[in-house]
């Protein structure tokens, strides 16, 4: 094959889903090429058709889907014309795919080595000793330590990151020319994501393999892609090389995506949002698909579809780039500042709203007939947190570090094993069930998944009214209804929502309903448990704006549990970094993010993909995964993964040290100013 010839060439691909009479035009006239050894990122929000594109290429569409038109040239053949048995040879051989969920992509009852061997046997025809050796090489290539032992292990014995590597190893077994990666790192933590992305980059260089990377994450695109294709409503709207794209995104939609990303620089100002919702793909479009949501739209945008406008390395599908119209582009991206709440203190006041001391949640591990306790999972193991009134504390950490358990134990949804939780001067841990029930209006929670946080069998009005009823606020039905309407208006939903069911709303709207439900009882503290991580960037911006506005209006405090550093840098006042059940670093958000002192914080921050290549720092690669909280390592919990660990770290858990006024860290390397009473183990 000629090097200059694209390895995959897709032209005018259209895929429909659902009924023939009223199809969903999930992919509508898509054209792009991928060259050898190149990474093309297909970027878009959920529902824009990027996964359906990948499945169309692999011809793995669900039963209701079908390719309507177009050609997919892969090497010398048209994939859409191959018979199913020929296609099976292409799949896994010439081109392979890895999926978002490594947990469900592997067969749980077959050892991973066998699963890789099966791929080898099918595509390379290797089996027996030669095949076994090849498997070990592959496991080594995807940097799985001790491949000989891992060969015989089952998927459940591996962590998420390891499983994704095994998936990559299976994909590599067929020695593909093209790897389609559908959100390969979305389910993984940032440090693990950094490992997997680096692995993919290295493998690509070694094997001259092309990658079609499907993602919604601009950061991942910035790290990985050579070229970027932005998808919106079943079409590619912009196609450009990485540098020009990140320097100057051309399409209004791409620009909006960047503008809605939360960053440190945008603090105290509202984020840009894209108005309206993604259009239904049932419809046929007369004009530009983005016109209804575009701030720059003019009359012509609604009338006929735009044509491709080519400018050197970049192509954009937009009317604004037609002759002599470029001047009309508005570059102004400033937004209104968020009015600061009058009661919002610049610094935490002396008596904080919430204070936890040595908070512990241990789950007993039971064994045997008589349920003898044989050990404890130390999910939360001595956490001290302080939140001032009207302020936001971000609790960050990787999955499994216990941050959600901290949130739930503060709310007493999980009763703490030991320690104290004082909210507004009241100790919550000792309260009886009924005493606690009366105090529950003071603290509320917003969950991550907007789909499971509401009873699907209740009307939205009843959902919001639930807390009002429980606390007896609102004597009559009319009063209650008025209160509910007020709450819904406050979160930006119309009053007629009350008679609808939750499933009739989009994810972002549901999250608003959750916020309205929490606010209805006038809480002083809201625990936000990853409230935006299930949402698209543009919707995330709306929710973050709403949370900020509500804080300014009613002075509520947030405990913001998240793993997303850019959200933290935008919304938080203080930050607490958690590792294996303990806080390792605590301080004002600016200090911690700019000058992290704990090696774990440093690694966490370095692993976050940066948009701007200039600010990119070298990734501090952490080895291995988070240890189990049932048997934490001796000494400093972080020492097995710490690049700077010393002998001391192996023996003693570090004391809490003060870096400056409000910045604390638990690390032996920072040991200048120990605080009396802060010493722990």
């Amino acid at each position, binding site marked *: 094959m000629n090097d200059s010839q694209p390895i995959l060439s897709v032209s005018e691909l259209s895929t429909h889903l*659902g009924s023939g009479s009223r199809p969903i035009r999930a992919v509508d006239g898509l054209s792009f090429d991928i060259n050898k050894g190149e990474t093309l990122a297909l970027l878009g929000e959920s529902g824009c058709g990027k996964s359906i594109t990948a499945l169309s290429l692999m011809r793995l569409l*669900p039963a*209701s889907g079908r390719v309507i038109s177009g050609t997919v040239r892969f090497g010398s053949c048209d994939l859409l014309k191959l018979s199913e048995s020929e296609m099976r040879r292409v799949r896994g051989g010439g081109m392979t795919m890895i999926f978002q969920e490594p947990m469900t992509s592997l067969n749980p009852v077959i050892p991973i080595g066998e699963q890789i061997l099966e791929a080898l046997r099918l595509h390379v025809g290797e089996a027996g000793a030669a095949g076994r050796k090849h498997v070990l090489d592959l496991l080594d290539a995807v940097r799985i330590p001790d491949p000989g032992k891992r060969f015989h292990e089952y998927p459940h014995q591996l962590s998420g990151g390891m499983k994704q590597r095994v998936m990559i190893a299976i994909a590599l077994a067929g020695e593909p020319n093209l790897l389609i990666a559908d959100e390969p790192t979305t389910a993984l933590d940032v440090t693990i994501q950094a490992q997997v992305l680096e692995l993919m980059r290295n493998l690509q260089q070694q094997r001259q393999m092309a990658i079609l990377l499907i993602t919604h994450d601009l950061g991942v695109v910035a790290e990985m892609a050579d070229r970027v294709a932005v998808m919106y409503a079943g079409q590619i709207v912009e196609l450009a090389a990485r540098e020009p794209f990140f320097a100057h995104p051309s399409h209004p939609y791409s620009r909006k995506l960047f503008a809605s990303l939360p960053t440190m620089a945008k603090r105290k100002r509202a984020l840009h949002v894209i108005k309206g919702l993604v259009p239904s793909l049932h419809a046929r479009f007369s004009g530009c698909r983005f016109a209804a949501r575009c701030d720059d739209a003019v009359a012509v945008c609604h009338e006929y579809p735009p044509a491709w406008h080519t400018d050197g390395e970049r192509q954009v599908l937009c009317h604004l780039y037609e002759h002599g119209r470029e001047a009309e582009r508005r570059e102004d991206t400033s937004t209104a500042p968020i009015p600061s709440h009058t009661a919002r203190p610049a610094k935490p006041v002396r008596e904080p709203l919430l204070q936890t001391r040595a908070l512990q949640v241990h789950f007993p591990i039971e064994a045997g007939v008589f349920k003898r306790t044989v050990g404890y999972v130390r999910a939360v193991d001595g956490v001290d947190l302080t939140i001032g009134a009207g302020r936001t504390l971000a609790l960050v950490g990787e999955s499994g570090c216990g941050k959600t358990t901290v949130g*739930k134990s503060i*709310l007493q*949804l999980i009763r703490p094993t030991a320690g104290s939780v004082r909210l507004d001067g009241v100790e919550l841990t000792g309260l009886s069930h009924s005493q606690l*029930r*009366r105090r*529950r*209006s003071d*603290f*509320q*929670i917003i*969950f*991550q*998944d907007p789909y*499971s*946080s*509401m*009873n*699907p*069998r*209740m009307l939205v009005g009843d959902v919001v009214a*639930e*807390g009002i*009823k*429980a*606390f007896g606020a609102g004597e009559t039905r009319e009063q209650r209804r008025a209160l509910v309407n007020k709450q819904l208006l406050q979160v930006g939903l119309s009053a007629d929502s009350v008679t609808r*069911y939750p499933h009739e709303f989009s994810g972002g709207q549901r999250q608003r309903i*959750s916020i309205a*439900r*929490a606010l209805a*009882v006038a809480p002083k503290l809201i625990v936000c448990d990853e409230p935006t991580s299930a949402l698209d960037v543009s919707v995330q911006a709306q929710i973050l704006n709403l949370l900020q506005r509500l804080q300014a209006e009613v002075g509520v405090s947030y405990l913001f549990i998240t793993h997303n550093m850019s959200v933290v840098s935008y919304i938080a006042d203080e930050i607490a970094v958690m590792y294996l059940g303990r806080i390792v670093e605590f301080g004002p958000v600016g200090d911690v993010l700019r000058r992290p002192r704990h090696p774990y914080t440093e690694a966490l921050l370095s692993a976050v993909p940066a948009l701007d290549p200039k600010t990119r720092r070298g990734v501090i690669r952490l080895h291995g995964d988070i240890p189990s909280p049932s048997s934490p390592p001796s000494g400093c919990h972080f020492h097995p993964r710490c690049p700077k660990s010393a002998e001391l770290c192996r023996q003693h858990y570090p004391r809490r040290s003060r870096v400056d006024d409000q910045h604390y860290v638990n690390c032996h390397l920072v040991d200048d100013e120990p605080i009396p009473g802060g010493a722990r183990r």
Partner: protein
Amino acid sequence: MLVLFWTDVLIYLLVAMVVVFALYARRREHLRAPWREVGRSGVAMGSLVVLAFYVTIGLLDSIHFRPALQPDEEAGKREYAHEILSVFDWLVTPLRERTEKTYSAPFAANLYTKETVELADGRQRRQFPRLKYGARHLDDPATEKTADIVATGLSAAVKGVAVWGLICVMLIAALARKKQQTFRSVFTRMLSGATAVRWRSMLYTFAVLLVISFAAADLSMEYHILGTDKVGEDVFYQTLKSIRTGLVIGTLTTLVMLPFAMLLGIMAGYFGGWIDDVIQYLYTTLSSIPGVLLIAAAVLILQVYLDNHADRFSSIAERADLRLLFLCLILGVTSWTSLCRYLRGETLKLRDTDYIQAATALGVRQFTILTRHVAPNVMHIVLITVVLDFSALVLAEAVLSYVQIGVDPAMNSWGNMINSARLEMAREPIVWWSLFAAFLFMFSLVLAANLFSDALRDAFDPRLRREK
């Protein structure tokens, strides 16, 4: 004079509950949507028509009264018969009263056994005597019978089709008025099966059933269409009477079991801890005892009680009814465990969902959480189990009566019919019609119930819900 049996009262209660639930579901979209899904399934709607036929007969058979005797000379004082009848009995009076001497085959004109008859000239001869009622209107059954059966059957079928046509026209007109469309458009849509509710399959099933019932009604006036049993009772009448028994067992048992299963299952799942342990031990223990043993013991105890207190019951029917009720109770007590187990598992899952946590965080009382958040979200399991259990219970009755620990021998039931037919299976020539009749009716009821419950499960089980 109206007579109320225990099971009658419970049946009325059950009907009231169904009506209340239907009214409740009408206003709630999440309950209406799956039912609409059921309405779209042709098989389910056809089965529903069959089930409705059975239920109608069962309900007619559940209104009991003592008929007034011919008034005596003393005016003002009305005497009531000792015998208790149901509305259904009253409707099919000829069927009930025309008993032959002993066995006769379906559509027979003569008895199944030879008897010595005295001829006109005084000689005695062994022959199959003519029946008292069956084919009495024919002079020479051997030549006339087939033609008569066909003629009667056909004329009845024509009547059935006519009545069906009339009902169709009325239904279409009513639908057209309700939806403000023309008669014609509703008709064509119905014919092409494009309606939201599958009227077409309902009407086709209805046509078949109407033709069969008209033919059966007309023919059974002249013949014993399913023969007669040992004491000469019409088998067709017996099977129809057995419908009520089957339905009572299938539904009242559920009524008994539901409170146990729901309360204990949800409590075990939601509260966990020692409550869960106690309930789990309770149902694992109970489900380890062989069910038949438990039922046999309970029924024998009841039998002893009934025999010792015979004077407390004014009629055999009342005694039999009490035994039926008791059987329902026992079956209910032994069969709640599986539903309880399902509900416990589902509640365990629900307890950790965000919306229940949110409700706890909002300070909602635990009892309110159970009734408002947990119970409505496990209802689909209850519904599916109830409908699936129904057919199993109908069959269980047959088996239990067969081993003589089921309903009272005096009560008509398919199990009793099978049991009494058992002895005649070895006879030559074989007496097959009791068994056949019981099998036919039981089979069509259980098949319809199973088909309906399949559609119901498809519509209600969220895991089986197809992407649209």
